[in-house]
């Protein structure tokens, strides 16, 4: 049967159940406009849809009933006989629906003119102010409100046959439908309710509840009359007995609607059951000889089956979301005058039901767009040497825990020039920038709100509310949409949606002492990497790679990517023993280095909470058989991380070149060892003093180390635990001071103080490490000293805050990432709310967005726009003219300082004069605080 028809039948059966309930109320309260409105709408829907599906009989019955009810709605008095007639029509509708179900979508033979005639006549009659009992009206006895339902029907049928004015003496088409209005209230399941015919044998019992509910029931007519009625109803299938009922139950009952919450709940309970089962099995393993063994195995199996079945309930083929598309496209094709061939591939790809509902509308939108904008007119196509019939192709497939849906057409492709023009016009991008954008970047603008390049707004599309809505809808469910377009050859939209709740076979791996799940779909193979084994990881420049069958596979270590690597593993570098999970995501192959591969397990993906959603490395969480929660790795994000690490490598080189061209950064560094043998360094300018203490003088108080220093207690911090307990008798330490408070950073050994040019590679280390640099020919880690101080220096922050003021907002503009990284923690610890910018244009993006600052600190020597220009611009804008702006420069010459003052800088401070900077900032913000408090 046509899926559309099937859906209609399911829906109509549902509405009929509702109508039944409503009719009961209507009968009691015929002048209630709300109830009438409800019934009217339901009948109207049936009428509309049956017209659409070409169901003539159904349509005409519904139409006649609708007309009558329309009269009531317009205020005609409702008479019991009319109510009865409406009920009759509903029963007739049910009969036809039943035929449709049993006859595979074909309306049964039958003549409804009697009913329609009666309905029309009634519609006429109710219009007359003082209706006389028309001959067409059934006898009063038949229409007694509150009468026993079954009897009503029997009576009705008899009346129909007997009523002389009946236009044709044809027997009524309505089957002896036992599901009279009354019984909608009875406890039988709704589906059975809509099964029209019931054997007369079943009637007495079925009628009982109804009779109980309607005390006004009059004595039932004799059994013979009923039998007669049943016989007379020609429409009732021959198997109107148990067979028919059973068949009808088995038919539409195949698809019932269940609230998703119910399924969700089922799912949770099954998960619990599985966990309990696993615990039992675990117990059983320890008690081999137990009489529970056999039943437990059975329980285990049933549980597994149950789990599978419940999981299946949520999954539906994507084809369900496509059902209506051919029809829509057919209509579009006619409206637009474009012959279109719709191809659908992968309709059986399954995805979560909820997701499916969510993508229906976006898909329809996109298909409309493709037909309207994408495809050319037949004439244009022929001119372009293409087939006259345009093709729109829909395909769906799984890719690593996601579903990819492609909507492609072979039309003209996106008009890049027009989009560019429009983007500039809409102010999305400046003309200058627009020229620099690649075609792909330009194409992405079509997903912006209010963007349409269609020449004319058609009824189909072109109102500019299309693609941004599509994008929003898809992003709501955690998906993404992209477009690839080639001029003259067509466009392809790629929608990627996660399977939010899906059963996935996953590989459970161990990395950094934690377990993670990797969806097996993306896994190609596993390779064991050991010292001296056939496979080993090598470093190619900095990138770890694995030689695998003549190919170089890039490797990314999971623990390093997630920042949970142990120092030994990090130090061991590529020499560590590991497993490589070879992944294939799209056309990218790469390896994930993990410490161990444990087993595979069927897992249910549960979404992570919204607080964690920005951590893109994980696609969700799952509960393992042993009840523990583990994170599921998102292969796509891994692939992206891999791509980023490659491009950022390239960026590094550029940055290095840029620095080299500027002559590099010269700076004094203090080099020391702490925790491990590798040298570490901090800029000397940050250090107040170097001291050496006897280890015995260090006092441990509630987990914190302190030392008496210049008459007060100075807190001590260490690089790591191993450095804290290294057993040395003498401990050198670097003393940092801030606002008169001193803090000691204890190291193992101070190596040297160097003053040289170097370049820093950022982000290569763990927490607390700004980057690495080659100092005196050795790779040296540059520490972010702020990382080691916060808990101690936070007190300062709190003090400032407690004084009743907000943290002053500070804008720091410096093209050197090193200085930004160096100063940010220092300024943050000093109580400023710091915003970092790598250049003036970035600073303006904050200012334009409405950000306001209490003080600005800017470098002078910057590419593009220098500090002098920046401060002049700030001074010329009334909003920012009064802000204190501090220049920060390596050029400390009097001329430069003078130039700075002229340009409008409030103060001019040498780059390494941290104390001077803080003092100046304090001064400028103190006045503000005074005003505020």
């Amino acid at each position, binding site marked *: 049967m046509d899926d559309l028809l099937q859906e209609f039948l399911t829906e109509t059966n549902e509405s009929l159940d509702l109508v039944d309930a409503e009719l009961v109320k209507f009968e009691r309260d015929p002048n209630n406009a709300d109830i009438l409105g409800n019934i009217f709408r339901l009948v109207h829907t049936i009428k509309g849809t049956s017209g659409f599906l070409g169901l003539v009989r159904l349509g005409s019955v519904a139409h006649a009933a609708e007309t009558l009810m329309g009269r009531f709605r317009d205020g005609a008095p409702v008479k019991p006989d009319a109510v009865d007639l409406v009920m009759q029509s509903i029963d007739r509708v049910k009969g036809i629906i039943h035929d449709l179900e049993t006859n595979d979508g074909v309306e049964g033979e039958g003549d409804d003119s009697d009913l329609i005639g009666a309905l029309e006549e009634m519609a006429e009659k109710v219009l007359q102010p003082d209706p006389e009992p028309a001959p067409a009206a059934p006898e009063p006895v038949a229409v007694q409100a509150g009468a026993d339902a079954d009897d009503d029907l029997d009576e009705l049928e008899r009346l129909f046959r007997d009523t002389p004015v009946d236009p044709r003496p044809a027997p009524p088409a309505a089957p002896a439908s036992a599901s009279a209005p009354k019984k909608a209230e009875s406890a039988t399941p709704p589906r059975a309710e809509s099964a029209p015919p019931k054997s007369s044998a079943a009637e007495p019992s079925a009628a009982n509840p109804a009779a109980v509910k309607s005390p006004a029931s009059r004595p039932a007519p004799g059994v013979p009359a009923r039998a007669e009625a049943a016989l007379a109803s020609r429409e009732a299938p021959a198997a109107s007995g148990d067979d028919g009922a059973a068949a009808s139950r088995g038919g539409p009952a195949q698809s019932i609607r269940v609230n998703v919450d119910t399924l969700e709940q089922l799912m949770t*309970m099954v998960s619990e059951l599985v966990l309990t089962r696993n615990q039992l099995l675990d117990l059983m393993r320890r008690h081999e000889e137990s009489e529970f063994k056999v039943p437990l195995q059975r329980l285990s199996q049933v549980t597994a089956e149950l789990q599978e079945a419940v999981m299946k309930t949520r999954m539906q083929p994507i084809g369900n979301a496509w059902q209506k598309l051919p029809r829509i496209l057919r209509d579009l094709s006619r409206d637009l005058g474009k012959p279109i061939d719709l191809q659908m591939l992968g309709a059986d790809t399954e995805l979560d039901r909820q997701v499916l509902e969510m993508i229906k509308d976006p898909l329809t939108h996109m298909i409309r767009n493709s037909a309207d904008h994408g495809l050319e007119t037949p004439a244009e196509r022929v001119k372009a040497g293409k087939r006259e019939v345009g093709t729109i192709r829909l395909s769906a497939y799984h890719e690593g825990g996601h579903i990819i849906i492609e909507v492609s057409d072979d039309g003209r492709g996106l008009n890049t020039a027009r989009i560019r023009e429009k983007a500039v016009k809409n102010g999305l991008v400046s003309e200058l920038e627009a020229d620099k954008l690649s075609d792909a970047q330009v194409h992405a603008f079509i997903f912006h709100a209010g963007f349409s390049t269609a020449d004319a707004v058609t009824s189909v599309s072109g109102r500019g509310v299309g693609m941004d809505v599509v994008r929003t809808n898809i992003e709501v469910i955690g998906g993404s949409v992209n477009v690839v377009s080639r001029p003259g050859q067509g466009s392809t939209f790629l929608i990627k949606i996660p399977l939010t709740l899906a059963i996935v076979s996953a590989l459970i791996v161990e990395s950094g002492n*934690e377990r993670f799940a990797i969806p097996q779909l993306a896994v190609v193979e596993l390779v064991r990497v050991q010292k001296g084994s056939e496979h080993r990881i090598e470093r190619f420049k900095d990138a770890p790679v694995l030689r695998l069958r003549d190919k170089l596979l890039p490797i990314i270590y999971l623990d390093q990517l997630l920042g949970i690597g142990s120092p030994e593993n990090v130090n061991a570098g590529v020499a560590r023993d590991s497993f490589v999970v070879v992944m294939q995501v799209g056309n990218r192959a790469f390896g994930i280095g993990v410490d161990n591969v444990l087993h595979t397990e069927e897992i249910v993906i*549960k979404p*992570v909470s*919204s*607080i*964690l959603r920005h*951590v893109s490395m994980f696609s969700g969480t799952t*509960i393992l058989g042993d009840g523990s929660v583990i994170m599921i790795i998102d292969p796509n994000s891994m692939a992206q991380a891999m791509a980023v690490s490659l491009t950022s490598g390239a960026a590094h080189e550029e940055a290095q070149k840029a620095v080299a061209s500027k002559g590099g950064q010269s700076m004094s560094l203090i080099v020391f060892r702490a925790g491990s043998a590798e040298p570490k360094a901090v800029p000397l300018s940050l250090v107040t003093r170097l001291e050496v203490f006897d280890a015995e003088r260090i006092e441990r108080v509630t*987990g914190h180390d302190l030392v008496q220093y210049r008459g007060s207690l100075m807190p001590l911090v260490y690089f790591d635990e191993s450095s804290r307990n290294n057993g040395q008798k003498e401990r050198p330490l670097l003393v940092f001071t801030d606002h008169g408070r001193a803090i000691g950073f204890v190291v193992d050994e101070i190596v040297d103080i160097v003053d040289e040019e170097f370049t820093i590679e950022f982000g290569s280390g763990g927490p607390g490490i700004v980057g690495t640099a080659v100092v005196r020919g050795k790779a040296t880690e540059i520490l972010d000293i702020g990382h080691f101080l916060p808990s101690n220096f936070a007190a300062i922050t709190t003090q400032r805050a407690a004084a009743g003021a907000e943290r002053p907002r500070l804008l720091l503009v410096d093209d050197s990432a090193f200085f930004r990284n160096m100063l940010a923690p220092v300024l943050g610890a000093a109580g400023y709310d710091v915003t970092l910018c790598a250049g003036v244009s970035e600073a303006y993006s904050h200012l334009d967005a409405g950000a306001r600052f209490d003080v600005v600190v800017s470098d002078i020597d910057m590419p593009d726009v220098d500090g002098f220009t920046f401060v002049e611009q700030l001074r010329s804008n009334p909003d920012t003219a009064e802000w204190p702006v501090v220049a920060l420069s390596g050029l400390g010459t009097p001329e430069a300082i003078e130039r700075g003052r002229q340009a409008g800088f409030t103060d001019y401070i040498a780059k390494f004069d941290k104390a001077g900077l803080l003092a100046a900032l304090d001064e400028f913000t103190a006045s503000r605080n005074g005003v505020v408090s």
Partner: protein
Amino acid sequence: MSTQLATLRDDAQIQFVTVRIAGQLFGLPIWAVHDVFVPQRITPVPLAPAEIDGVLNLRGRIVTAVNMRRRLGFPLRDADEVEIAVGVDYLGETYGLLVDEVGEVLTLDKSRLTTKPPNLDPRWSAMTDGVFSLDAELMAVLDVEVVLANIKEEASA
């Protein structure tokens, strides 16, 4: 102030679940709390905000554990100290607020709720709805929504 609390009449009685974090007494409106449990096997989430200790399984639901000591800027507890979690719902998701101790449920008149002292740490100020001056000590009323919403904002910023 959380809307639910604000809409209550002044003479309304509010029940608070009291919790202790680093010695300080806090109150959570009872409607915000649906569970109190001992967290077991918290799985850390790499790259997550520092306040998130990890995720755990509470009867088949995934619960995100929030370290309230860290959230409120207290020193972290020692490894051997017990902790207990208060289960709250936020945006349809379940979170476990890790606290040191869960105490009795107090019923207090809303009229006794005093505004926050202006010199309160702004972080705290945002997360509290007000203060009750109890006989023995002060009880800050935690606004669970703000506690959680801010983590999200800070994380995605």
